[in-house]
């Protein structure tokens, strides 16, 4: 098998097509027991905020059919500790690192970008404007054209021009294509999609929502058809904007589906919890799926499902 698995997200070249998904691999270190993290397409780190954050009360998860709900609520050490402890480990270990940032306000996003701007070892910035685990739905910037453009425009103005900015979108909107268009106009170089869907599980013994945070984000294979649809729609509208695709990718076949829909690279999220070696396994399986069908590279199948018209 001689399939070329390399790909790119705009100006960012990736040696492998699979990355971890934000929030599903912490800052990569724990996965090192299961594989060489530097051989992954990259690690997308858990969304970091300016200050330390303790997240939402537990229980923070509920298993659902072919999926799960989480309500972590962006627990993290804050940007300074992140740079000092996590980013340094990633850089030392030669990991392609995409730093995900989350802010409670447009200004906080701007400040995060400014703080990270001159830190070495960042391959791209993922701007999480779509976390459902915040206290008010109004804080989900990506639900609205204006707020999502505001965030991206501000981050753009604080960021450098060499390193791509990916905007992370939620599918919980009436029209994801128009949100995608807004953030690209505002300066995003690429899109990460999709974030989780807002969901709830009720504990019928306690007669209250199962999660401490009441609602949570639904992820895993259950949501894959929604993710593939979103990637397909957005790629159709914005064929030149690279997409980091995710949502329930479990094996090489699923990965190929996202590429065909228009993703240029893939983040592996929930499936890592069940199989920590999944990001490596899926890259290998993707190679086999491509080979079996006579393809020589990842690149040639990106968006291929659009050609049939």
């Amino acid at each position: 098998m001689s399939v070329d698995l390399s790909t790119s997200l705009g100006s960012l070249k990736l040696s492998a097509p699979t990355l971890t998904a934000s929030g599903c691999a912490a800052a990569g270190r724990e996965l090192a027991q299961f594989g060489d993290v530097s051989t992954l397409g990259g690690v997308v780190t858990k969304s970091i905020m300016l200050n330390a954050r303790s997240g939402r009360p537990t229980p923070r998860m509920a298993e659902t059919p072919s999926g799960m709900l989480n309500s972590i609520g962006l627990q993290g050490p804050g940007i300074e500790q992140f740079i000092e402890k996590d980013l340094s480990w990633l850089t030392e270990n030669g990991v392609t690192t995409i730093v995900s940032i989350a802010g409670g306000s447009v200004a906080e996003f701007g400040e995060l970008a400014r703080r990270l701007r001159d830190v070495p070892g960042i391959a791209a910035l993922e701007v999480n404007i779509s976390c459902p685990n915040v206290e008010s739905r109004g804080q989900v910037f990506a639900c609205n054209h204006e707020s999502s453009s505001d965030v991206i425009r501000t981050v753009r103005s604080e960021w450098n021009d060499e390193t791509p900015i990916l905007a992370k979108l939620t599918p919980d909107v009436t029209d994801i294509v128009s949100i995608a268009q807004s953030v690209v106009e505002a300066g995003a170089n690429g899109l990460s999609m999709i974030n989780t869907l807002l969901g709830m599980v009720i504990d019928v013994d306690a007669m209250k929502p199962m999660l401490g945070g009441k609602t949570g984000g639904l992820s895993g294979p259950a949501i894959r058809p929604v993710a593939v649809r979103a990637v397909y729609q957005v790629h159709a509208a914005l064929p030149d904007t690279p997409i980091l695709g995710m949502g329930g990718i479990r094996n090489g076949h699923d990965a190929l589906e996202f590429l065909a829909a228009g993703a240029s690279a893939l983040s592996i999220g929930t499936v890592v919890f069940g199989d920590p070696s999944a990001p490596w396994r899926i890259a290998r399986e993707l190679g086999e799926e491509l080979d079996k069908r006579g393809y020589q590279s990842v690149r040639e199948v990106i968006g291929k499902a659009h050609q049939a018209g």
Partner: protein
Amino acid sequence: MSSSQQITSTITSISRVGAYWHMVLRAPSIADAVVPGHFVAVAVGGDNSSMLLRRAFSIHNATPGESIEVIFAEHGAGTEWLAKQQAGAELDIIAPLGTPFILPRAAVPCVLVAGGYGSAPMGMLARALKKMGCHVEVILGAATGERLYGVLDLKRDADNVTVTTDDGSSGIRGRVTDVLPEIIGQSGAQAVYACGPMPMLRAVANLSTEHSVFSQCAVEEAMACGIGVCMTCVLPVIGEDGHTRMVRSCVEGPVFRGDRVRWDDVHTVPSDAVGAPIPGGH
């Protein structure tokens, strides 16, 4: 953090014991690395399962170069599936996981307290402590006699075993904490080890602290990943610096110092925790 392995393991035997199942898993290289308090995470439901997440079980026993053992209760769909498996079937497992019990530095008297299947790790622990020369007292509690596990084995492994049941169907009617103070007193215990339901752990930890005895508790929090990457399994723990943090029970635990866990605040984020929500803020 110990280095964990993900392997395909064959079930060597699986059988019913009282209200529980005892399962032996072939896992030569893993067994070598296991110490008391480690846990294993098992994938359930087979290919095409709608259950994505692993189930965590304390490691009950490890035979180096051969196998590990677990004791489990049928709880929901995952453990029901597991109970239907037969010897010869293969399971995808990850182990050893977690921060195990810390053994005392010297041969001091110890009390091991377990509720229900919480007795699973206690045999290994008792043997390790005995080997060091510690006097080992065990207190086993359960709702009913049927839900006690391993009384006979522990009688062999430890110096003394006291049994309590809520309904009095076996041993003393009452709770483990009804007998704990007396046994601490009599044995001159300098360390308490506990595994069982959260309310029991809280009571055991608090009693131990009241009696100025150092305690270690193996907690049980819902875990999505078991390896430290998801942040679902946190509880409020006071660090060396006196600050409370929401700490991952899968890697920093499941064994915590009993006096460090904010038992009354489990399932909440205490307002003085590092990074707690600022009222009015986000």
